Structures are given as C-alpha cells and as structure tokens.
C-alpha cells in the first residue's frame, strides 16, 4: 500500500465488516431481535406457540432478520451454569451469513441484490420484483418473499447505519457482547483468541462455524457454538448453488444437441408422408 504513489489521492477503501456472534455469551434476551425489528421497521411474523423451548420464532425469514435459537442439551458438569439435575441451555443469535460467495446475489436476475462497500449482501427494495429465485438459492434458508409485499427481504446488515458510521442495531442492543461487530479480519482474530481461551478453560466443545473450505468461501457473519453446529441448524457443508451450473449446463447442451440431431434425423429419414 505504502509504495502506491497515488495512495493519498484515492478515497480510503471501506473496511469489510462482519458479525461475530458468540453463543457462550448469549443470555437469550432477544434484545437483538427487538432492536432489529424496531430500527428496520420489520412487521410482525406471526404469534405462534411452538413448544420448542422458549423459541416461538423458529427461523430467520422475510420478517425475522435476527433470531435467537434455544438449544436444550443433556446436563453435563461444567456445561453452562445449571445444576446437574437440570437441562443445559445454549442460546445463539442467528442472522444472514453475508456469504463471501452468495447464492442469492448470484441468482438474482434483476441485479437487486448487490455487494456493498462493506462486503455485505444487500437487497435493493426499489429493484426487487419478487421473482423468488433467491429464496431457493440460499443454502441457509435466510431470504424469503413477504407475500403481503411481494418482494424478498432479509438482514440488510443495517446498511443505512453503517453508511452513517454506526454499528448495526442488533450489535448495539446486545447487552453481553455476544454480538460483536467490526472489521472482519480483526473479528476473526478476536474469535481465534476467544476459542483458544475457552478451550484452555476446559470448554472443549466450543467451535467456530465459518464454512471457509466450502464453495460458499466463508461468511461475513460467523458463529461460536458449543457441540455440533447442526444442532443450531448451521450446515457444515453448505453448497453455493452456482457450483452446480457447469454440470447442469453440460447436461442441457447434451439434451439440446440430442433434440436438434434427433429432429433432423427423424425428418431426413422419414419425414414425408
């Protein structure tokens, strides 16, 4: 950077930002869900009684951009602060992963979904025409079409707040520091230090979920969870849908060639009455 003679004349590059959500610090208060709804004016998403622990929201969706999961576990000594005879409880605040290689962004035929200067994935509401292709292209089931509106919605990574130099509403509201926001590279170092510390303290099942070795290429929102990520509905081998394109188009070419050659042959050999 320093030997670039034009460096001083360029505008400074926007920092790529991220979310590091640490489930070991989450107390399940859902302040992030509420702050997100309030700041972004997200409508209610149904009043249901799920029976699944204290989670009546169940998943992210068109009108749920932060979602606190309540994972119940068999008690183990040293797991959580619970007495041995009670169950162990873990909470984790889920959010759009803002993938490095984003399926929704690649699929979007209108160019509504873009990569912002902060590295996040953003749906431009004035462009989206509600085609629904992003919905089937997200390997994490995040984005969805709001039928009352017709367009697709998901976490904006508080693009408006970041533009104004503010942190996203959920991170601002988090009372325990479970949701950390900042420079993605620095956050990854923070996470590495945190996991090393937890392991040293004996919490050996703590693990970082960030699928860097998959076609998704890592996520800008990544998580520290205990035990297997799949218990938190976090897939360990997500596939970026466009990874299937080469195989699918090859088949389409074979099919098209067969139709073309077959039609010509059929008529050449026996077309006349």
């Amino acid at each position, binding site marked *: 950077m320093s030997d670039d003679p034009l460096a001083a004349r360029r505008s400074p590059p926007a920092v790529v930002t991220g979310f590091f959500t640490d489930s070991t610090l989450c107390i399940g208060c859902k302040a992030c869900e509420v702050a997100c709804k309030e700041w972004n004016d997200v409508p209610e998403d149904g009043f249901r009684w799920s029976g699944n622990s204290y989670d009546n929201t169940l998943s992210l969706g068109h009108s749920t951009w932060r979602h606190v999961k309540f994972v119940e576990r068999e008690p183990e000594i040293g797991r959580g602060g619970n007495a041995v005879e009670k169950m162990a409880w873990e909470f984790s605040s889920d959010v759009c992963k803002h993938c490095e290689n984003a399926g929704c962004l690649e699929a979007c035929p209108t160019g509504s979904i873009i990569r912002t200067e902060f590295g996040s994935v953003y749906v431009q509401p004035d462009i989206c*025409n509600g085609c629904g292709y992003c919905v089937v292209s997200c390997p994490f089931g995040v984005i969805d079409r709001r039928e009352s509106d017709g367009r697709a919605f998901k976490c904006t990574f508080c693009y408006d707040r970041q533009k104004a130099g503010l942190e996203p509403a959920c991170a601002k509201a988090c009372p325990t520091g479970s949701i950390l926001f900042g420079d993605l590279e620095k956050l990854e170092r923070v996470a590495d230090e945190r996991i090393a510390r937890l392991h040293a303290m004996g919490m050996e099942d703590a693990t970082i979920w960030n699928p860097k070795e998959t076609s998704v290429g890592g996520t800008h929102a990544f998580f520290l969870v205990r035990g297997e990520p799949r218990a*938190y*509905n976090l897939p360990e081998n997500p596939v970026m849908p466009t990874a299937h394109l080469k195989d*699918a188009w090859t*088949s389409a070419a074979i099919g098209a060639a067969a139709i*073309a050659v077959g039609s*010509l042959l059929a008529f050449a050999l*026996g*077309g006349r009455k």
Partner: protein
Amino acid sequence: MSDETYYDVPLLKPPVWTWEVPVYFFVGGAAGASAVIALAAQLTGADRKLVRDARRLAAGGAVLSGPLLVADLGRPERFLHMLRVFKPRSAMSVGAWTLTVFGGASAGAALVKGRLGDLAAALSAATGLVMATYTGVLLGATAIPVWAEHKKTLPIIFGASGLASAVALLELRGHDEPALNALGFAAAAAEAALARQTKRIGAAELFSGLIPAVLRIGGLKSKRLRRVAAGAALLGSLLTRLAWVEAGKASAKNPRTALR
C-alpha cells in the same frame, strides 16, 4: 455425525412459486421444441403445413409464457426489471433474455414470409433449444436438495418432456408424419429410462415414459394409437413439471438432507 437437528425446523425455505411456474416450464418447453421441429421439417423438405403449424405453436407458446411469468412475480409491474442486467451465472437471467429473443424470433417466423421469416425461424430454433432445456438448469443450480441432486438429469428430462409435448400438440393438430411418431417414441423412451435412474416412478413418469412409448410402437400401424399416445404424453409432460416443483417444496422441509 449425529442425527441432531434444531427441533426439526426446516433449514431451507421452500420455493414460493405457484402453478404458473411449472405451467410455464410446460408451455415454454413445448414452444421451444416446436421451433426446432419447424426448422428440421423445413430443412428436410417436409410438408409446408407442418412447418407453418410448428412455427405457430412456437409463437403461441412464447406469447403465453410472458403472462405466466409476470403473474408469478411478487411485483408483476416490475417484470421489465428482468432486463435491467444480464447475468450469465443466473439461470433465471439467462432464461428471461432467452425468452425475450425467442418470443421475438418466433413471432417473426410465424408472421413474416420469405427469407426474413426463415432467418427468424433459425433464431427461434436456436433459442428454442435453450428454452426446452434451461428450466432443468434453473432448478438444478439451487440449494433445494432434490433438485441439486438431479442437476444432470433435470435438463435432459425437461428437454425430452418439451420435445414430447411439441410432438403431441402437432399430432393432435392432425399431422401424421412418421417422423413425429419416431420423435415421440425417442422422447418417451428417454423419459422412461431417466425415471428408472431417478427412482421416482409415479403418474408423471408413467404418462410421459412407459405408456406413450408402448402406444407409439403400436402407433407405427395405427393412427388412433398415435393420438392416444399424444394425449398421454401431453398429460405426462405437464405432470412432470408440476411434480418436480412440488418435490422441491417437500425436499426443502427436511432439515436432515440440507444439514448433510
């Protein structure tokens, strides 16, 4: 690895598409294949009436396709946003542009006479090949497990299905060229073979595969059997598209396949 999930809550969101999308797959596929038949018939000097009807079928299908796709949008008034950008890595974008070119070319081929019409017919056939097969790519290159698993077979199943329905519609219009029966047989045989491979054999597979294939062997001698085969193939082609879209919805509900 454990079988644990998060209260069996689905990981993926099911497709939001309603009947318009699979019906478009059917209509667009038939139109695309019909444009190919029109060109093949023309180049080999087949009956002019067949060429004319196949061109008309392609144009009619293209005209129907537009409203079906617009109706499925959450914001139909924004359908032109599909043509704001061209994204080769989005099968939906490729499809929107292909349909646009195919629609114009097919209309030209059906309405304009002479060399200009023939030129339009050639473009219509070229884009028709994409129309008949890209919908398989559209489903295959997604996060929906059952579609992605069949990314290699779906474009061929849909292509064969498009060919079978174009043949059937032309036969039901009164065309009796042996070439049509042969093409219908080839498409049905391909679908029967692929149905075995996908291990999914229901009404859609029977009506598009085994039933028309057998009827078309009898159809070598009997015009009536050919008509029955055409009816079965037409029904099978529509059912195939409806079934694959519904399969995607069911597939999205199972968190275990998505968490693998």
